[in-house]
């Protein structure tokens, strides 16, 4: 690896960490010093005037930069796990200090302003957050202790929520927007979970039923593969028209609470897209045990049900969870479109924000969607990894 014969590439690889760390620190400094950390506007609709970190953060600015530079230096200079753990602690401290500095600085800056004035997070704040998260990711990977990633994320989110409860971010526009529609956001969050969960609950039995139909697998693959090609907006529109027609043909369905616009057609539409990943995953899981073990099981006198429960499902578990992960992330994303046909969910807040051209309202809906799908992705892929190592062990 460290033979000096490969010339330029090897030299770049050796210099890489140092150069990368320097570039990272420079980018962070630019985000905090040059870019607009906050945008102060007279109200929530007009674009704000940029304010950089120097004015907002005050004495916290050198603190954030020093902590971050120290962490970057540690990551670049020492390859060990202990150094990485130290760097992670420094990065977390920098993130916390930055968050507190932004909240505190915004509160000072907004103290004399009329109540309609808003302090929105600017590009500098987002860039700095992205850089800090990326560096923390590198540090976490290097420590390579299972569970550290989720624990760090939980610590960060928990800390931000606690600080928010304590009123640290009250001056920020996002918090003002949230305070104004707390109940609506919570309701939308629950609706979103119901939409995504309902679609999964609808798709799973359908997929199990379809895989039992041995002869029709070719046709099934063709049809549910074809569904994937249909754009979601088009499918939802078509389903609304079909549901409307169905309701007119069979009016008693209305009494069951079914309507052309609402959660029912949205769930069906979302479920349609989940069929392919689930069906593929189930097929792969059932194929997981090799023919020799199946023969052995049959020779031992195991029934088909026993083979399914003791052999196919445990061996195919990782594939099943992998399929569930893909389907869950898709369901959470697609549920955002449900608001288009009156199904509610976080998409409604996003679309309200788009209609009003209010960036903070869009964020208020978008951030939970992204957080939900990231959480689902990370959790299920951790389960998948654990099952994989459990199977091979």
């Amino acid at each position, binding site marked *: 690896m460290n033979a000096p014969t490969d010339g330029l*590439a090897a030299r*770049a*690889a050796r210099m*890489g960490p140092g150069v990368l760390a320097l570039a990272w620190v420079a980018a962070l400094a630019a985000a905090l010093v040059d870019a607009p950390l906050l945008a102060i506007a007279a109200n929530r609709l007009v674009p704000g005037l940029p304010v950089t970190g120097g004015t907002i953060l005050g004495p916290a600015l050198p603190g954030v930069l020093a902590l971050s530079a120290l962490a970057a230096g540690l990551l670049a200079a020492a390859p060990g796990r202990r150094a990485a753990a130290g760097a992670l602690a420094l990065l977390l401290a920098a993130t916390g200090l930055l968050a507190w500095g932004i909240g505190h600085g915004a509160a000072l800056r907004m103290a004399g302003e009329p109540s309609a004035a808003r302090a929105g997070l600017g590009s500098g704040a987002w860039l700095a957050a992205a850089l800090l998260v990326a560096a923390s*990711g590198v540090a976490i*990977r290097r420590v390579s202790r299972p569970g550290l990633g989720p624990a760090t994320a939980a610590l960060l989110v928990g800390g931000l929520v606690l600080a928010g409860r304590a009123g640290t971010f009250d001056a920020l526009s996002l918090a003002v927007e949230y305070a104004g529609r707390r109940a609506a956001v919570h309701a939308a969050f629950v609706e979103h979970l119901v939409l995504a969960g309902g679609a999964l609950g609808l798709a799973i039995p359908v997929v199990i039923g379809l895989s039992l139909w041995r002869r029709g697998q070719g046709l099934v693959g*063709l049809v549910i593969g*074809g569904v*994937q*090609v*249909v*754009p*979601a*907006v*088009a*499918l939802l*529109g*078509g389903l*609304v*028209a*079909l549901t*409307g*027609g169905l309701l*007119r*043909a069979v009016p008693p369905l209305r009494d069951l609470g079914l309507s052309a*616009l609402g959660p029912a057609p949205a769930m069906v539409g979302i479920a349609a897209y989940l069929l392919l990943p689930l069906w593929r995953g189930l097929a792969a899981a059932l194929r997981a045990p090799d023919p020799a073990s199946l023969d052995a099981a049959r020779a031992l006198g195991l029934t088909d049900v026993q083979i399914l429960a003791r052999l196919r499902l445990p061996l195919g578990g990782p594939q099943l969870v992998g399929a569930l992960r893909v389907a869950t*992330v898709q369901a*959470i*994303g*697609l549920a*955002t*479109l449900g608001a*288009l*046909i009156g199904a509610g969910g976080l*998409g409604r807040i*996003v*679309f309200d*924000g*788009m209609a009003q*051209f209010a*960036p903070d309202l*869009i*964020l208020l*809906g*978008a951030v939970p*969607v*992204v957080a939900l*799908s*990231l959480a689902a*992705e990370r959790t299920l*892929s951790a389960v998948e990894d654990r099952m994989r190592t459990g199977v091979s062990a």
Partner: protein
Amino acid sequence: MRSRPAVGVGLAGLALAAVSHPVVATGIARLLGEAPRRALDGERLLALALQHLALAGTGFALVALLGLGLGILATRRAGAAFRPAIDGLAAGAQAVPPVVVVALALPVLGFGGPPTLLALIAYGVMPALRGTAGALEAVSREAKAAAEAMGMTRRQILFSVELPLAAPGIVETLRTALVLAVATAAVGALAGASTLGTPIVAGLQNQNTVPMLQGAAATAALAFLGDAALLGLAAILRINRP
């Protein structure tokens, strides 16, 4: 025989295109018991389809270029170090659905096409990159070793061994990207881009079924026809394979 899936998908596309015709769509709406409302005339539908095609085509070209180029770079020797970062980024980017990117980009980029293109690139590049890299990595080691033993340069190996052998996998990746491009262009209607999504969104808001049905059928038709074209390309590539 080998081009049969392309023919089937193409026929589905043509059938959907027929459904989007004003007369057919009005008939279907009548069958569904909708009150007859004014349909979009053929001219307007064609104009929207062309705008849809232009937006989706631009996005697809950008995603394909970036995905292919970065996918090739990631599989070179110098790119190996970036693989974990790429896989992490890919998983992260998948967590932000295109609608959300369109919505987030709206205040920054304004109404119209740009938020849609950004959404397409943000959501589409990483899977395209991963697919390309996966297809290139699946090329057998023996084939590459043989080419090296024959004295081929790295560039020659890439263009006359790796890429031709990985072509079917790369076309699969491009199919996903194309379908995504057509779908995202429809979502772009929410950000004011004038595409086939526009009559769907407007129809949903005004309870106007006929244009909604036309827009939905035409969008799906575009997706199917594009998919058929790439399936046909895949069939040709497979036939021409040595």
